[in-house]
């Protein structure tokens, strides 16, 4: 089964221990969505994925990895 992993938790800590609240604010979503993403319970839309990557200032592939 195809799976999309993400590095949100690691990137948050790499960016000065950014809080979930702050990331949510920057990406324009709720904190609950960030929690769900970190736990791998929710897959974001392409738009939200780009917003999260932009919030960290990195490429999309650095945040999300597709494993076939």
């Amino acid at each position, binding site marked *: 089964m195809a799976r999309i992993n993400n590095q949100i938790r690691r990137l948050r800590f790499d960016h000065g221990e950014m809080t979930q609240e702050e990331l*949510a*604010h920057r990406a*324009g*979503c*709720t904190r*609950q*969505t960030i929690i*769900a993403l970190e736990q791998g319970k*929710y897959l*974001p*839309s392409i*738009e*939200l994925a780009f917003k999260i990557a932009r919030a960290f200032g990195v490429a999309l592939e650095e945040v999300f990895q597709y494993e076939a």
Partner: protein
Amino acid sequence: MSFKTFTRIRIFLLIIMVGLTSWAIVSGNAWIPVPVIIAAVILMMLLRRRVKEVVADERVYSIAEKASLVAFRIFGIAAAIIGVTLVAIGWQSASDLYKIGLTLAYSACGLLVIYYIAYIYYNRKYSGKK
């Protein structure tokens, strides 16, 4: 306004609305809840605009879509089966069961019509057809 404050006000309004509606129905003033509900909905919309945080995002909408589909299926199937059964039971006597059954059956039909109109609209909107 923070989301927490908004949630508190929303719960408070809901309690007032439910209480007032219950009281109005019990006391026989069935028209009182109508302006109360309209006022509460307008107030909620105005308050929602004042919330600085994100109240609902794509995950919330995705959950709402799934919940709506489940509710639609359950209500549609249940209303159709119960409605037709009640119509069949009360057919001869034209009793209240017949009327309830007919209302349920028509509700199921109405729901299906709304669903298919909405489906056609969104299918056209997101298929690139003009």
